[in-house]
């Protein structure tokens, strides 16, 4: 958790941390928020990182579960990035977390320039 101004969204069982120094957003835990409204602050945090610097790393290696609303939110974020000419998104994921395989590969189809690092 390095970084001078750390922006954190915390809830039951999850944590989202914006690390401006590395322009990285880390998602951890289990995200089961219901609907786009509840995911809006997290989407805002991701978009804020995108506004700051076109290059954003989204680290979901510690995100054990993401429900359909969360996947929809990530899709919206990737579409937003795709619509910006200068944006570059890296998603760091884990092969060992079941939900990440197909869902994240779909993100690369939304944005072919997206760099999916499956660790």
């Amino acid at each position, binding site marked *: 958790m390095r970084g001078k101004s750390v922006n954190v969204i915390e809830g039951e069982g999850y944590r989202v941390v914006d690390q401006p120094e590395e322009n990285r957003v880390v998602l951890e835990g289990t995200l089961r928020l*219901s*609907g*786009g*409204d509840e995911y809006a602050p997290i989407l805002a945090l991701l978009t804020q990182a995108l506004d700051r610097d076109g290059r954003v790393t989204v680290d979901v290696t510690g995100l054990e579960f993401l*429900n*359909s*609303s969360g*996947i*929809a*939110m990530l*899709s919206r974020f990737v*579409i937003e990035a795709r619509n910006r000419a200068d944006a570059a998104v890296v998603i760091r994921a884990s092969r060992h977390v079941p939900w990440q395989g*197909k869902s994240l*590969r*779909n993100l690369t*189809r*939304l944005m072919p320039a997206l760099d999916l690092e499956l660790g």
Partner: protein
Amino acid sequence: MAGKPYDRSGGLVVRQVLVVTVGFVLVFAILAFAARIGLRAMEESYQRLDALVTQNNAKIALMTAMRDAIRERMVLTYDIAHAEDPFEADELAMESAEWAREFLRARERLLTLDLTDEQRARIEQQRESLGQAQDIVLEVAERARTGNLDGAGARVRQARLANERVLQELQTMRENQRELARQELLRADAAYAASRHDIFALGASALLVSVLVVAFTVWRILTQGHALSRANQALEEANTHLEQRVEVRTRELMETRAENMRMGAELEVSQRLQRMLLPGSDELSAIDGLDVAGFMEPAAEVGGDYYDVLPRPDGLRIGIGDVTGHGLESGVVMLMTQSAVRTLTAADGSDLRATWSALNRALYGNVQRMASDKHMTLALLDYRPPTAAGEAARIRVSGQHESLLLLRADGALEVLDTDELGFPVGLVEDIAPFVAEAEIELRPGDTLVLYTDGITEAADADDRLYGLERLCTLLREQHGADAAGIRNAVVADVRAHVGARPLCDDLTLVVLKQG
């Protein structure tokens, strides 16, 4: 828990009784001690006073007797000196001697008493004076007898002087004795005052101890009273609290029951919805040339699995999909999907890209209205029967779903990935850019198996998943069986794997065997 405060207060009572008892025993002991000291001191001073008074009276009486004797003798000496009759003089002299003996008896008795050294010295001196006086009396008496009274007056004066000296001595002794008695009395008074002081001091201590014991008892009773009232208050509060809690809990239970009933009703409704629009077995068996067997078992909380087999002018359209999440919403999305696919199929729908676009827009729009973010995997398979006997049937596959399992007549198994053939329906506004299609040839004896992840991810008691590999192995073994046989074998194997554990997700399986 409830008995504890009472136990403690029982201990307090015993301790208090002990303290009070010990306190009062102490007070009585002090009082008894004081009384003993006081009585003894009183008795002693009484005895001393008694002895003092007795002795003083005796001394005074003896000294008075001695003085009287001297006085008598002085009178007699004078009488002797002036006696006219020698016999009378003799008689008087004898009487004088008698008084002298009287004096001496008194003196002897006085000497037996408790005298000061000074008193003894004085009495010793008196003996000499008295001796002189006696000698003079005897001489005067002798002279009186012989009639030679010349110089008798002088001798009588001498005797008188001697007697007066003795008298004076006695007087002094009496006064001294009185002074001594007074001093003794003062001492007795002082002793009495001292013992009275002691008694008062002890009495005061006893009083102090009593006051302390009483104060302690009162304090204990008061604090215990306070503690008791506090405990009562706490108990009352706890009771009230408990009542409130019972009320709240009852309400919660009622609500939970209501919620459970509602959820039970919802589960039942969802399961009924899930099953309601499935193709009937008569529909499936009516299909010519293709042996079709379907299976769906919704989980308690339905997973929104979908499958359908619909007739088309040039064949069939088979759909299979899985809505994200569980519950009524997933079931509703599944129903909308069924309805939309059926509508599009009825309205021709040979243009796959247009079909997908319309389907996605309809579902995306509705899901947005539902504000649920549900989306789904969905594969559509357009089946065209073989145009001639011995030819292969052709299946156009599009949409993203689980892999398709193609079990060849000889038992060989092909796994077709569909990831690149589509995109989750309802996730993005426009799905068209992601839609692609693939074609499969289904020759006689070949079987196409469609499933949802409820099959491959069916978990046993130890969370082990059934898995694609086990499914493939089983299918290879079952390649000779008909569609229903294959379906039954898979369902039985999955059930055997899951055991008594409830299903986590819907199980859906569609088996299509080319005749």
